[in-house]
Structures are given as structure tokens and as C-alpha cells.
């Protein structure tokens, strides 16, 4: 029922997409089932290059599931079944010949809880580079420095690169994890509620970082914090019950949402 009702909206979204030539991710009619239960219903969404897109919606609305479809993280769960298309730079990432390892290098991800490895700061950032076979010490040092600088952490850790990453504050750990993701030079960054465990100052620093990262990266952020979505994103998608209800420029969605469900959610009339 609901899926039918919103198809018009979604078609409109794909039409809008045709107007932009900087679309790097294009999700078409994406449905996901978890065992028998359908958790995403015909989602259509696109991400524009070097823009921040926020996914908002109540718990269980499918926003994290959608995020995980972009680096095929859902593949790791065999109870999960996917139908539809996810195109990244014109390539169908669910095609049989897709190399998932290189996909995940291209699409970096940062989780809700900072998850540094119990290693030194340096080794955390160098981890992916070493996996890729980089061994030259000077080159490693240079890449680690660049990644830490991009993640706005370099100045805070440059004198203790070989200390344990676990000594860092949680805000610093979150930026370290971002540096780790940036080190392998992804094109797209997926952030799954990256600020929900941070104090307000660390949160603002992270938002500041997101603003600086979009100069080079395409970012999709899932957040529970609507003000945060409003602050950091260029576009916002509102999801509810596994459907993409509305997708607009952020300023527009937060002042004049087109759908009653969006209105009720962002004004706190939900439920």
C-alpha cells in the first residue's frame, strides 16, 4: 500500500537525478529482505559527488541497512536478500564480477562506536595501506600524515604516533577511524551515526571535519540527530518503515517538507 503511494515521489527523485551530471551513486528500486521480512521497499536515491547527504528517520526505518548496501556489508549476513540496483560511477556493484575488496576500498565506512585496533596510532592508519602491500617506510609515513591531517587529528597526535590508539579520547578515536578510512583513498565515505557517542565539542569538531572532507569526498551520513543532519548535509533523505519518504535539499526539507510524514517526524509529532 504505502510503497505504491510513494512511487510517484520516488520517480520524481529519479527525474531530479537526471538533471545532475555529478551523480556518483545511483540506487534504483532497491529492496532488501531480512529472512522473510522486507526491510527496504523500492528505494530510489542518488548521491552527488562531493556533497553530503544525510539519512534520517526513526529507529528501524532501514537507514543503516541502506547505508550498508553501498559497500555490500549486508552480504556478510546470509539471511539478507537484495533486489534492485546500486550503481557507483556507472558500475553495478552487485554484478557477479564485482570485486568486493576493491569496492570497500572505494567506499570507506565509519561506525557509531569508534573502533580503533588495539595498536599504535600509526599502525591503525597504516593498516589498510599495508594490506594493500605498501611497505616503503617513507611512503607509509607520508600517507599516514596526510590521512591524519585530513581527519584533523595530526596536530593532536604528531608527537605520539607510536602510542596506543586506545589512549585517545572517544572524539579523537572517531577521527582516527576516519583517518584510517581515508588512508586508502576512498571516493565515498559512509558514516553510520558517527557522532552519537561524542560530547558536544567533539561532535562539533567532527561536523567541522565532515564539512572539510566534502571538498574531496562524497559523504553519506546516517544520523539520529536532526539538527546535525541540518547542519552538515546538502541533501537529506527521510526514511520511514523501509521506504524513502522524501528526498530534498536540506534547507527545503527542514523548512517546507512536502510529505506530511516528514513534517510530523521533524517537528516531533511522530508516533
Amino acid at each position, binding site marked *: 500500500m504505502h510503497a505504491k503511494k510513494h512511487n510517484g515521489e520516488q520517480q520524481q527523485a529519479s527525474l531530479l537525478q537526471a538533471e545532475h551530471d555529478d551523480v556518483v551513486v545511483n540506487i534504483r528500486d532497491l529492496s532488501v529482505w531480512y529472512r522473510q521480512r522486507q526491510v527496504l521497499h523500492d528505494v530510489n536515491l542518488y548521491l552527488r559527488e562531493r556533497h553530503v547527504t544525510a539519512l534520517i528517520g526513526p529507529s528501524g526505518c532501514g537507514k543503516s541497512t541502506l547505508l550498508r548496501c553501498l559497500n555490500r556489508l549486508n552480504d556478510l549476513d546470509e539471511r539478507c536478500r537484495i533486489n534492485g540496483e546500486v550503481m557507483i560511477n556507472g558500475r553495478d556493484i552487485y554484478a557477479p564480477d564485482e570485486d568486493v575488496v576493491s569496492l570497500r576500498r572505494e567506499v570507506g565506512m565509519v561506525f557509531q562506536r569508534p573502533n580503533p585496533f588495539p595498536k599504535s596510532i600509526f599502525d591503525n592508519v597504516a593498516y589498510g595501506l599495508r594490506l594493500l602491500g605498501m611497505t616503503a617506510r617513507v611512503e607509509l609515513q607520508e600517507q599516514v600524515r596526510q590521512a591524519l591531517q585530513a581527519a584533523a587529528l595530526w596536530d593532536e597526535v604528531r608527537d605520539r604516533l607510536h602510542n596506543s590508539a586506545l589512549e585517545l579520547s572517544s572524539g579523537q578515536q572517531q577521527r582516527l577511524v576516519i583517518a584510517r578510512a581515508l588512508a586508502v583513498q576512498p571516493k565515498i565515505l559512509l558514516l553510520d551515526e558517527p557522532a552519537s557517542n561524542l560530547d558536544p565539542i567533539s561532535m562539533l569538531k567532527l561536523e567541522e571535519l565532515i564539512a572539510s572532507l566534502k571538498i574531496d569526498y562524497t559523504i553519506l551520513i546516517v544520523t539520529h540527530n536532526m*539538527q546535525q543532519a541540518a547542519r552538515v548535509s546538502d541533501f537529506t533523505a527521510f526514511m520511514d518503515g523501509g521506504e524513502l519518504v522524501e528526498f530534498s535539499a536540506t534547507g527545503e526539507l*527542514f523548512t517546507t517538507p512536502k510529505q506530511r510524514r516528514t*513534517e510530523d517526524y521533524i*517537528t*516531533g*509529532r511522530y508516533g
Partner: protein
Amino acid sequence: MQNRHSQHISREFNDELETIRSQVLRMGGLLETQLDKAIRAMLDNDQALAAEVKRGDAGINRMEMEIDAACIDVVARRQPAASDLRFIIGVFKTIADLERMGDESKRVAKMSAAERASVLPVEINAELRHMGELVQGMLHDVLDAFARLDDQAALAVARQDERVDAKYKLITTEAMRFMAEDPASVQAAMSLMWAARALERIGDRSQNIAEHVIYLVHGRDVRHLPLDDLFNPQ
């Protein structure tokens, strides 16, 4: 919008918005009284009533400040979005217009000086009275549109402004004719023009409020658009 939408999860937030809404309506009611007194003072040359209008303006100024503070408080604490945000913005603008209408009412009352009646023909009073009625009607209707968040009623108010403007033009033409015909009437004709000017401004500000109502209902900024375009599809 409190009427159009379900309630907030936060009842306190509901109450705050509802309080602001009723405060705006109370401020509007106060202004209606002021304008009524001002027009009567002007038409009847009633100096005592004019003095009352002058004193009464402080109440309107005070209400503007109170509502302003309540809106700032909501913005700071609730970070309103969507229709709530548009409501708060609409209120900010509406009370600024109401406050200036209070000032214009004082100007209307000031025209109660006795000299006009003695010099100008009686018919001109009828024109002024009629213009006053039109403006009072606009104010009344726009407050009603605000109370009910009725965009159609707001549009109807915006349309009425054309009649007020026509009346204004007629009165100024007459005033200029008096001045040309009889130099002794210059002072009275000038004061007539000032009164009409103040009424015309009140009409304009009612139209502004009508536009704020359309904005807060639809989220569309209709300022500086021809009336006929207001409800054409985008």
C-alpha cells in the same frame, strides 16, 4: 497549524506555541481597539480619545517585546523545524507589522485637530470614514485568517488593499484640489493627507500579515508577487 496537525510529543512545546498564538491574537485585538478609537478621535475631533490612543500604544509595544522574547526562547530551546519554524518566523514578522500599525494609529488619532472640520467640506469626512472602515475590515479579516491559518482568507485580505489604495488616491487628489482652490485650507488639507497616508500604511501592513499567513501555511514567499500569481502552480 496547531489545528491542522497532530500534537507534538512534547506537550510543553505545544503549550508554548499555543500561548504565542493567543498572545498574537490578543495583541491584534488591542490594535483593533486602538485603531477604532483613533478613527473616531479623528472623525469627531475628540482630543481626549486621541490622548487615550497615545497612551494605549505602550501596551502594544510591550506585547511586541513579550512575544518576541517568547519566540526567541522557542528558537533557542526547541530548534523548531518545518511548520513550527515557519510559524515562529511568521509571528516575528507579524508582530513587527502590528507594532508599526500601532504607531500609524497614533498618527491617525493626532489628526483630531479641530481646524480640519472648520475648513474642509463635510463630504471629505465621509470618504475618510469609509477608508477607515475598509482598513479596519482588513485588519479584522487578516487577524481572523491568522487565527484560523486560512490562506484563502489571507489572499482575500491582500486583494482588499487595492480598494484602500484607490480611496487613498481619491482623498489626496481632493486634498490637493482644496489647497489649490483655497490657500487657507493648506494646513487642514495637509493633515487630511497625513491621516489618509497613515490609514493607507495600515492597509499595507495588513497585506504584509496576509503574506506572512500564506508563508506559514504553504512555505511559499509571496511577497512582491502580483496577486494573480499567488496561487498559480509553480
